[in-house]
């Protein structure tokens, strides 16, 4: 009777064109989705790989520095220093901050390190950047601009206008007779501000501490002291930690490079220097540079 014929399994049958259409459509959607996911993943990985890791620094509580990595070694290799014969000060190595400012990709790299650090979300962000006269100005201003926060000038003398508040005199590495004072314009830093103090280098810590003390006494928080180069042999960070019975013993300190990570290869003293001294007149300079 009617039992003949083929029973179809599983509901409706899909035709070949429909199957093709679905496959292609599915593939496109999957393809787009996966390439989007891949590129997002790629960007996240690249960001992580490029992000410098920080590790505990040598001075104990709160001191961070950059973890050694090929990128950090490359950064250190580009930071030049000069010996006493070619330096303004009588120190074994004069580290030249122009290594950053005259080298745009490296300068940007360093500024980005700070921007990442201060927008990480792990702490409430700083409200102000205070730069030490004058090399701290060049480093601190771009960081402040990138973060959209005020940049404040910590000056060594009375050059700022308005009413100034000054720190007590401090002793520097360089054995100068006159002790400088650190000044801020009254009102530029106030109670409740979270201030990062920026300089290119920390040596004996005298300058560092003078600025930190001033910010502290104005009722603001020293969010962090940072220097690109630290000279551990001069124990500047220890001086900060010991200061006034330990008022800064837990204050975050962040340094990027130091005497060891910046090796001898970064010495930039010109070899075979014929001229009388290291400061030459412009007419001679043109002749030298063309050699």
């Amino acid at each position, binding site marked *: 009777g009617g039992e003949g014929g083929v029973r179809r399994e599983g509901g409706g049958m899909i035709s070949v064109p429909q199957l093709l259409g679905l496959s292609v459509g599915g593939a496109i959607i999957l393809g787009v989705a996966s390439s989007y996911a891949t590129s997002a993943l790629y960007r996240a990985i690249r960001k992580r790989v490029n992000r410098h890791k920080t590790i505990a620094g040598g001075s104990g509580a709160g001191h961070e520095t950059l973890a050694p990595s090929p990128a950090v070694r490359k950064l250190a290799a580009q930071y030049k220093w*000069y010996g006493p014969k*070619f330096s303004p000060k009588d120190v074994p190595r*004069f580290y030249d901050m*122009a290594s950053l400012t*005259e080298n745009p990709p490296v300068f940007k790299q360093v500024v980005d390190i700070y921007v990442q650090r201060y927008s990480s979300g792990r702490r409430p962000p700083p409200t102000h950047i205070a*730069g030490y006269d004058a090399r701290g100005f060049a480093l601190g201003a*771009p960081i402040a601009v990138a973060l959209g926060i005020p940049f404040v000038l910590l000056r060594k003398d009375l050059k700022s206008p308005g009413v100034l508040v000054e720190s007590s005199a401090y002793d520097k590495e360089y054995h100068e007779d006159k002790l400088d004072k650190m000044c801020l314009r009254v009102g530029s830093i106030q109670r409740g501000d979270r201030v990062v103090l920026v300089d290119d280098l920390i040596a004996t810590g005298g300058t560092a501490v003078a600025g930190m003390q001033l910010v502290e006494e104005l009722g603001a928080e020293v969010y962090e002291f940072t220097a690109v180069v630290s000279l551990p042999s001069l124990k500047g960070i220890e001086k900060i930690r010991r200061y006034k019975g330990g008022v800064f013993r837990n204050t975050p300190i962040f340094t990027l490079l130091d005497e060891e990570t910046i090796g001898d290869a970064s010495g930039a003293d010109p070899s075979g220097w014929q001229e009388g001294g*290291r400061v*030459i007149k412009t007419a001679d300079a043109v002749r030298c540079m063309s050699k």
Partner: protein
Amino acid sequence: PEVFQLCIDVFVQRYAGMDVDAIAGLDARGFVLGPPIALALKKPFIMIRKKGKLPNAVTGEEYRKEYKGENAAGGDELCISNTAIKEGARVLVIDDLVATGGTLIAAVDLLKAVKATVVECACIVELKALGGYGKLQAKHPEVKVWGLISEDVLTLEGTVA
């Protein structure tokens, strides 16, 4: 920060199209203004400092400023790094303020002596009454000063947009 960013943006917009090779900032307020502009233009920032502050430096002639510092004679000398400028480099000079023009002329003298081409001198405030621009033009007719604000603007009644 907003006003600072606005100033930087104005300078960057102007100099992005002027084929600048480097930005030279005058110690120390030029160090605040110059680096953000230099970073935005992806060009080197070069410090022009008073004598005795830079390693490996070239020094210029003595000059006079608007105000006397500790130096009773009022004379000073500017320095630039020995290696910063290549011959023919197009350099933008930046400082916060131009007054009598003494410092600015000394900086332009120094840059021209190391064979740079000075594109322009940029500043935030120009005190026109002190005649700095005229003095600069007298010595370096091809170099202009480009300032954002002068007494002409400062004495106008401001409105908030």
